[in-house]
């Protein structure tokens, strides 16, 4: 064998959903459609703002992976916790941080969700239980088990969703955390967003097994994969697992098979991808799939087009607000380093 492992083709990723939807489902998926549309357009606006020089630094877009974010969030309740890595603008919004605060944070504004101290990779909201936005690959995963430790300690029944990328699975502390989640029955739903590349390196060059989720099984953590391009699959599969987790209180690892349409960050042209791979996955585009499903059950095309127009208008307003906001004040740079210690006031 020359190859250590093989990646799943788009064909293998594709799941089947029934043509039928109940009225409740139609209502629900119309909302999900609108949300995914918002995520897609938000990230496109962010990219343009970046190229216009409105902000700098690293900026990782989530375009192509909207179904994972929208589907998983729809399976949770408000009090559940979410923690993620650095490709998390849309996850922060999905968890309830107003999009204008997320954009303002990137622009270094006082109205940013972290007052300009976190940036694109480090969005936080204590109130919304979005525990970051973390810039070190895999670093958020031990934090997630700590959050779940608190849930058990206080005998609560929330769960923690911890997003990580496919390449994070080779980071030692991720494996340490999986083991501890298993031995202490910590209710963390690990969502591995397998978008096939750790920055520019094909996952098959760094990981000997084809199915990442199988690694969790080696730690005694139940695991499966799912079609991360179909939001109906994501929502149904996640909801079933979440329901089970609230009862058995055990961790679970779900490998979401997805695809990143853009480069690792906005400065990456993604030339390392084999020809046709992007197009192959765009055939499974989460927005197109759901739109087709909704049209098939009788939703009017005009109604969906109205969403497109509404999102466009909404985002224009958001960007204007973010643009207009005051810059984060320099006078506050010494704030928030430590909780004050007597005799050592902030400078």
């Amino acid at each position: 064998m020359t190859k250590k492992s093989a990646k799943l083709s788009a064909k293998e990723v594709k799941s089947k959903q029934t043509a039928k939807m109940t009225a409740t489902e139609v209502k629900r998926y119309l909302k999900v459609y609108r949300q995914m549309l918002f995520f897609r357009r938000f990230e496109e606006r962010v990219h343009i703002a970046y190229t216009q020089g409105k902000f700098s630094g690293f900026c990782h877009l989530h375009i192509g992976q909207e179904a994972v974010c929208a589907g998983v969030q729809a399976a949770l309740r408000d009090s559940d916790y979410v923690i993620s890595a650095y490709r998390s603008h849309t996850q922060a919004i999905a968890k309830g941080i107003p999009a204008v605060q997320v954009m303002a944070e990137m622009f270094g504004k006082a109205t940013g969700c972290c007052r300009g101290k976190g940036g694109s990779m480090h969005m936080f909201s204590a109130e919304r239980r979005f525990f970051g936005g973390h810039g070190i690959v895999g670093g958020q995963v031990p934090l997630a088990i700590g959050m779940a430790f608190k849930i058990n300690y206080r005998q609560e029944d929330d769960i923690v969703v911890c997003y990580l990328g496919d390449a994070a699975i080779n980071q030692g502390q991720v494996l340490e955390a999986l083991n501890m989640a298993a031995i202490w029955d910590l209710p963390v739903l690990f969502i591995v967003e397998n978008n096939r590349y750790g920055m520019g390196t094909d996952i098959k060059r760094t990981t000997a097994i084809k199915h990442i989720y199988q690694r969790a099984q080696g730690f005694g953590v139940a695991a499966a994969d799912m079609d991360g391009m179909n939001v109906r699959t994501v929502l149904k599969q996640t909801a079933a697992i979440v329901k089970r987790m609230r009862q058995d209180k055990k961790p679970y690892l779900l490998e979401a098979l997805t695809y990143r349409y853009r480069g690792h960050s906005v400065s990456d042209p993604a030339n390392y991808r084999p020809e046709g791979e992007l197009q192959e996955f765009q055939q499974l585009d989460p927005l197109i799939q759901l739109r087709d499903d909704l049209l098939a059950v009788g939703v009017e095309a005009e109604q969906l087009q109205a969403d497109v127009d509404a999102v466009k208008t909404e985002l224009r307003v958001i960007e204007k607000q973010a643009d207009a906001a005051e810059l984060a004040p320099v006078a506050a740079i010494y704030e928030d380093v430590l909780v004050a210690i007597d005799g050592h006031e902030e400078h």
Partner: protein
Amino acid sequence: MTVPTQATKISIREALRQAMCEEMRRDADIFLLGEEVAEYDGAYKVSKGMLKEFGARRVVDAPISEAGFAGLGIGAAMAGLRPIIEMMTWNFGIQAFDQIINHAAKVRYMSGGQFKVPLVLRGPNGVAHMLGATHSQYIEPFLAHVPGLVVVAVSTPYDAKGLLKAAIRDDNPVIFLESEFMYGDTGEVPDAEYLLPLGKGMVVREGTDATVVAWGKMLKLVLRAADVLGDDVSLEIINPMTLQPLDTQLLVASVNKTHRLLVVEEAPAFAAIGAEIAAQIQERCFDELDAPVARVSAKHLPVPYADHLERATLPSVEEVVAAVRQLLYMDTQA
């Protein structure tokens, strides 16, 4: 800081245990987690009996995964608990530096003050005896460098108890440094409850000729050196207790009185705490100094194994005595 009259002589090990137990009785959100802390009663028996009193929910044996369980402590602290994480030694705690530096120290700042991390990471630091280089390190220079951390060093049973109680109640991540070699050291500890404030140092002995700053095992070394020097020299000995944030005011006041300063530390001198103290004192007391700030520290080496080599590497009483004599120009005065 005077010790009340009602006091009992106990070891540092016992002082630390009393601090944890008293705080855990007071606050149900506090738990202890680390390698061998529960069923084995602690690698150095600091947590002896705690499993029995508090149960397996609050005294938790961890797998050998320092980065992972340091991160667990950070996440639990962000979510509202007050973890005490024991590092069997800080040499192993180096495995957790990513979690400590990239997460514990930064989550509050990066979130614009939305989160706090009330976490104590404690364990033995520095050189014990004949353990070789990987088990003989001093982490205070590394971690005192990082904005967002508090660094505390234990020197006596009295400060061990008062500082640990304060560290547990503090809302910041506190790096708490003990020593394998000092767990058995005994001293008077008040029977009544007390806390020692973080960020404040202590004058261990008042004097007029020179100020000597030392913490941990080096404080004992300095006290022995003071005995050797006898009544000829009046040393003002300061235990900074908290290394970050440092009680610079206390040091400045002392140097303005004595006009001379010696820092004795167990780490190599380069970019270590003594270098920082020397810089701050020359910035604030330049006109008051009657001699250059002096340092006694370890040689710039990985600490060797063999007893005589190890001793040759670390600061000695003789070196401290010589440094004080030099500082006071005692051997050049006719």
